[in-house]
């Protein structure tokens, strides 16, 4: 066999290696972007009126919930339809702890642990199964919390418990601006933890499980502990967000604030912001929180606007805003280079045989289709 035939056909696909243009060496650009974003997030409350700080805090709290869903939905491909219940648990239990003068730092840790512990009750039976059982278990959990646990006066308080605004290691939270900074600190820590996890072994393992459980098992990965562990982490984050939610309103909200419908609403965050990038959580959180005053202005319901945005995002085919940005950057990089990046074969170039195919003869009445090579072996002989 003359490998030449093959090589001619593949010549275009081969040997074209990735060349990183200035736009593609994105590490520095990314770091710069994050730095600018961080400075912006720190500075803006200093130059804005009081009323904006409430929505700033709300954004940050939503971003925490968004982050909890991004790591769950984006990393493991599991969908929780009961996350509002964890937010509720964090809110109600957090109020109890704060009212008993537990310091806020300790409360944050304890609430995280409580949320994680509760998540195990439904995570262990449902996540060891493949398929949609987890999703339905979270749905049933959400309903049970909303209707049963949260309506108990022992949980919520008789009408609504007061939630004191304690200090977070020196950060005064009595103003909305102070609370915003407190939440921002927690959010930053969570983002760093998530970022470190994502780019080391555990993060890769989670994506591997999402893409192919079979191949993950062949990498010596035990699947269920990872799924259950990550769900616990996600629940912990959502519960901590709930703690701050209560502090923002300074009272325990009604159970409807943590309804199943609210869980579905939260799901819009990873979809709108993008589920594969951590920043998607920030974008999604800001969208929901900033959407609130905007829709009040235009007299449209937030749910209606969100559901339409959610459907449009899904139909657009992008992974949310961050996904669209990423695709845009790639398109620009390709345009600058003049052609898309292509990757060649793993076979070293010098081993290719670029000699043209040996054409022995062509036969047939009509000319063969342009570009085709017909090889016929002529066997000498006489037909009887």
């Amino acid at each position: 066999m003359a490998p030449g035939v093959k090589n001619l056909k593949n010549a275009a696909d081969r040997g074209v290696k990735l060349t990183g243009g200035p736009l593609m060496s994105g590490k520095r650009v990314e770091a710069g972007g994050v730095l600018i974003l961080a400075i912006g997030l720190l500075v803006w409350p200093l130059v804005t009126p009081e009323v904006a700080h409430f929505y700033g805090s709300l954004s940050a709290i939503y971003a925490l919930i968004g982050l909890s869903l991004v790591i769950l939905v984006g990393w493991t491909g599991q969908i929780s339809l009961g996350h509002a219940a964890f937010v509720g648990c964090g809110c109600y239990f957090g109020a109890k702890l704060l009212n008993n003068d537990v310091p806020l730092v300790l409360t944050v840790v304890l609430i995280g642990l409580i949320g994680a512990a509760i998540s195990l009750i439904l995570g262990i039976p449902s996540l060891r199964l493949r398929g949609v059982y987890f999703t339905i278990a979270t749905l049933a959990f959400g309903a049970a919390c909303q209707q049963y646990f949260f309506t108990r006066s022992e949980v919520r308080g008789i009408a609504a418990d007061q939630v004191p605004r304690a200090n977070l290691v020196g950060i005064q939270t009595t103003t909305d601006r102070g609370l915003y900074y407190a939440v921002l600190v927690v959010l930053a820590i969570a983002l760093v933890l998530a970022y470190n996890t994502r780019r080391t072994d555990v993060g890769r393992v989670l994506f591997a499980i999402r893409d192919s459980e079979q191949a993950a098992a062949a990498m010596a990965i035990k699947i269920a502990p990872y799924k259950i562990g990550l769900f616990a982490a996600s629940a912990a984050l959502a519960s901590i967000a709930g703690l701050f939610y209560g502090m923002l309103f300074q009272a325990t909200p009604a159970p409807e604030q943590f309804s199943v419908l609210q869980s579905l609403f939260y799901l819009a965050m990873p979809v709108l912001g993008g589920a594969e990038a951590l920043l998607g959580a920030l974008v999604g959180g800001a969208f929901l929180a900033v959407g609130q005053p905007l829709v009040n202005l235009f007299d449209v319901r937030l749910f209606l606007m969100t559901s339409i945005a959610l459907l449009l995002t899904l139909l657009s085919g992008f992974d949310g805003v961050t996904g669209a940005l990423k695709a845009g950057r790639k398109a620009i990089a390709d345009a600058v280079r003049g052609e898309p990046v292509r990757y060649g074969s793993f076979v070293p170039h010098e081993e290719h045989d670029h000699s043209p195919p040996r054409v022995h003869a062509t036969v047939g009445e009509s000319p063969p289709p342009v570009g085709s090579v017909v090889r016929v072996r002529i066997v000498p002989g006489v037909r009887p």
Partner: protein
Amino acid sequence: MSGHLIGTGLTKRYAGLVANDAVDIEVRPGEIVGLIGPNGAGKTTCFNCLTGAQKLTSGSITLDGKVITNLPASERAGMGMARTFQQAQLFKHLSVEENLLLGRHRHYGASALRAAIGLAGGAERKARDLVHSIAAQCGLTEVLVAPVGDLPFGTQRMVEVARAIVLEPTVLLVDEPGAGMDSTESAYFGALLARISRERDMSVLIIEHDVAMILSICDRIYVLNFGKLLAQGTPADIRANAEVRAAYFGSTVQEAAV
């Protein structure tokens, strides 16, 4: 030396069908063993039973003297058994480098907590160094940052094999690596596999339809037909075996020569 895989009396039945019927198969340390046979002969079933992706109906499997018949796939992998799949199963959300790094999972050595608070630098660097050297060996250096979905098919297969090698297995099971490779690639691949097996003292069991490649790299070859072992021996034995040719062509050699 390790990497000694023995399957005894491997039998797998589906409703009404016997996919494997008392197959005895052995891969000795350092050997490259081929498993060939016509379509539907039960090669992949045999493979899946050895790796734990499917449960045996009866029979037993040992790896380096330990019985692994009922262990799940992940534990077999933890004992040093790596595999690739007939349909390449890459992690499509990850880059080539990240795919390869996953092979280091069982050697990673930093806990989830340490990694989360940023203390996995050492483990990460060690893993990356090894991955880069294996990628270089497999001709994948240039594509390390590429998303796996953008790669040509043959290169994807190579990534899968490299990922399995990163596991530092004692025995590697490769299912039809040549599917999707052109003949240059598959010849190159065969030679590469033989070299890696030698350098790393790794035994290999390989299913492949490119008989030329199998004949050139294997120490011994098993031939399956209708779920039963039809023949085994050195490449020369197999090449000379009339029954094997019949299994592939459906008639005896005498008829074929007409």
